[in-house]
């Protein structure tokens, strides 16, 4: 009798790229629900626009590149990029803004570099940063709970500090649970825990990123609580939790060794704090991630584990 042969190992693989991406998408659900609860369903429209645009652009690019379209669309990586980008754009933003962002993310940052696996930078963050730099006004109009657009707490702190006002004097929802962002952040943590237990992501990047942020913010807060916001404020503001669990952990653009991931996460945490406190932008997770993306290959090279039997 004749048989087909394959190379070892023969055992059926446990997972696939689509499964990994799907797990990340599932992990985003609590965050999205909380978002809708506080700010209304506008975000869902953005997510829908981003997803449709991403799928169309991805398909077009795959076709141009002569790659199997269906197979690569099914990996869900374009959908994930779209959802992450939509969550980073203020929900009241015009649809064209979303489309432009997705275009940069999918076409420029991902497909022109060779598609999935070949992009050195996180596509969603490229799309976000392009929009932030090109359309700063639109990109900082976040919805308020009363339906009126407002600055985020991070913005308020930044403005206050730049005007040499004491943070304690601001009427900010500083206390835990007072801001919707606290609850959204908590929902992201929930998704992060799900991914950690499923082995979708590893603990090193979120732990080292958040740890560094806590250490740095605690240090400066203790030095001068009027000029520097508290660690709790930093942890639960802006894109900290979304970044720690969903963006910094994007495997393609992150460091891949165990020690490398720790260094990579620490870098993001440190840059995020530095830019937030002394830089030109209120939030900085996106910039920090992109900076560390660029450093990832070098970090990997110098953090190779000791090979068994080598001294």
């Amino acid at each position: 009798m004749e048989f087909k042969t394959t190379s070892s190992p023969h055992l059926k693989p446990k997972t696939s790229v689509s499964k990994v991406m799907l797990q990340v998408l599932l992990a985003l659900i609590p965050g999205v629900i909380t978002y809708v609860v506080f700010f209304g369903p506008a975000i869902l429209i953005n997510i829908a626009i981003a997803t449709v645009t991403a799928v169309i652009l991805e398909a077009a690019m795959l076709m141009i590149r002569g790659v199997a379209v269906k197979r690569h669309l099914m990996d869900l990586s374009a959908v994930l990029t779209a959802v992450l980008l939509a969550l980073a754009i203020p929900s009241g933003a015009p649809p064209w803004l979303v489309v432009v962002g997705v275009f940069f993310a999918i076409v420029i940052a991902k497909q022109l570099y060779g598609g999935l696996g070949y992009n050195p930078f996180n596509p969603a963050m490229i799309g976000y940063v392009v929009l932030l730099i090109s359309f700063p006004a639109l990109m900082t109009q976040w919805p308020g709970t009363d339906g009126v657009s407002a600055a985020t707490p991070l913005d308020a702190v930044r403005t206050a500090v730049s005007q040499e006002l004491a943070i304690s004097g601001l009427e900010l929802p500083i206390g835990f649970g007072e801001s919707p962002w606290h609850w959204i952040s908590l929902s992201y943590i929930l998704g992060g825990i799900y991914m950690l237990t499923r082995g979708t992501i590893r603990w090193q990047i979120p732990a080292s990123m958040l740890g560094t942020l806590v250490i740095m913010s605690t240090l400066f807060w203790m030095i001068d609580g009027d000029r520097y916001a508290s660690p709790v404020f930093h942890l639960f503001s802006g894109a900290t939790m979304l970044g720690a669990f969903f963006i910094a952990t994007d495997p393609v653009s992150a460091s891949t060794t165990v020690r490398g991931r720790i260094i990579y996460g620490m870098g993001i945490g440190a840059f995020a704090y530095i830019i937030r406190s002394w830089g030109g932008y209120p939030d900085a997770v996106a910039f920090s991630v992109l900076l560390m993306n660029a450093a990832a290959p070098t970090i990997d090279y110098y953090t190779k584990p000791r090979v068994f039997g080598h001294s």
Partner: protein
Amino acid sequence: MAQTFTFPGGLHPPQHKYLSNQTKIVTAPLPQRVVLPLAQHIGAPAKPLVKVGDRVLRGQKIARAEGYISAPIHASISGHVVTISEHPVAHPSGLKGECIVIESDGLDEAAPALENYADQDITQVDPSHLRNLVREAGIVGLGGAAFPSFVKLNPGPQHQVETLILNGAECEPYITCDDRLMREYADSVIAGIGIIMHAVDAKHCLIGIEDNKPEARSAMQSALERSGRTDTNIVVTPTIYPEGGEKQLIKVLTGKEVPAGGLPLQVGVVCQNIGTAAAIYQAVNNGQPLVSRIVTVTGRGVEKQLNVEARIGTPVAELVAFAGGYTNQAERLIMGGPMMGFGLQTDEIPLVKATNCVLVTTAEEVKPSTEDAMPCIRCGSCAEVCPVSLVPQQMYWHAKSKDFDKLQEYNLFDCIECGCCAHVCPSHIPLVQYYRFAKSEIWQQEQDKKKANAAKERHEARQARIDREAAEKAKRAEERKAAMGGDADSKKAAVQAAMARAAAKKAANKGEAPADAAATDAGESKPIGAAAIAIAAAKARAAKAKDEQAGSPPGSDEEQSATVSPALAAIAKAKAAKAAQSAGDSDPKISAAQAAIAKAKAAKAAQSTSDEAEPKLSAAQAAIAKAKAAKAAQNDGDAEPKISAAQAAIAKAKASKAAQSSENADPKMSAAQAAVAKAKAAKAAQNSESNDPKMSAAQAAIAKAKAAKAAQKPEGDS
């Protein structure tokens, strides 16, 4: 409970062991025919000792070990050798291999047992006897690696063996042959341990058994208690793949890391498989060579999953038939486990010593055969499970771009091909295949490099020789011109002689008969006076050469002339000889004698004086000179065939001897060539006794050509 250690990475794949470990080991029926590959072990393939048609008995050695790292092969049934030829064998590449095929006579008649030590106190037996017995029994590592076992039993005086590790981990899914062996033949295994420990002089023994085999563990524990051994402990280890890897198990049991590229002996450990220990016991106690083994036949593609004791060489198809045949869902046939085994295209392939499992899977159990890989998403899962702490995600990029230097920098050769990385890869990239390919490419490149270097050296040597010869030729031509001066007759004669010589040389080199015709023609057409003239010219040149040598001022020219003059003398003499030959019509006897003497001298002169400067060259020249001398002598054969033949033979012998003596680089080769030359000379001499001078001349020419060539050859080819 003994302390255990961990190695990096590892996996917990689904076990599937219960499929086959529930029933006792059964004995397979005698196969109709067995196919016994000569290469069933790591090392050199065995060399057949039988020929087609021979009747062989079970346990009879039918192929001997070739070299140290090798193992003999024994007939696993009695019957007749039907073929010794290429046959598909158990090899990942699907290549064929040389096999001895035995057709059963149904009698299963056993050969006499090997000299053994049944019921003796093994500790009183010289370890070297045990090693020899294990070697003679053809025992190799039965865990899958098939490394000749006696080699491991010979640690050598420089290594002290602290620990014998018995590998009962059996970490790959599906496989249960060691599990069943431990459950049913624990006493044999324990007895085998005693033999191995004595052979390697180990202080203690650790038996590593994964915690998914509690029955095996308790059976071994009871056997251990029965044996009364106090230097042996059973260590239950947590189940994790690939714990059964030699270096991994050593780490788990002792905490020691075998250095990369090193042997367990370097950390004082010898590691043997459970099945090997039992086989060693069979050999030492019963004198039984390795003719059968226990193999797991399992997977959901066969009707019955079981462990079967089968004869080595049994076709896989017969084992499957014994297990009730294929189910209609049978999809893939794998020899070995699902992680490291290799897919078989056909079930005609025979069971070999290393075969621990025949796995027939359904489509659900294995990865699809057609799926394309997705791009690597750098998730790093592969690095997490790598038991050697490699970074497969990086190695993949370098393997894909064939950057082999980089791959070696990333320690490619430490990869044990366990398959953990590929198994966890979400993109389903066949990583192991990439690394295997890269390894074989690197091996190939190294081979090619070696070959290229050898070729380069050869080419350079040849080029140097050609340049040297060209320079000498030019020098000779100049000298000749100068010596001839204005003498029109001698010039003419010399030109003709040179032409004849050139033709003769050419013919001699090519080994063609017309050379003789040319030489003879030249001789016949020349007037007698030419001989005298030539001799005179030669003498003049010789004298001149002498003068030059004597009178040349010290300095730059000295060295040159010192080597040139003997050469010149030789040439002069050779010419004299030729001239003498030309005159041969008038007095063949004398001229032949003169020619022979002159040539011998020429050769000697050329050889003796230029030894320091160019031993190789002088040998070649001497050979050529002698060949010519011989030729000249031969051409006179019409008058005195016997004498000339004898002279030719002597000349040739000398030529070859000269060639041989100065060729230190390869005495064997030159000796062989000399022998050939002599043989041919003798033949030529013999032939010339018969009344066919033309033919004998032709043969002589060929012989001389060969002699000359032989003298020349070592320069280029050795």
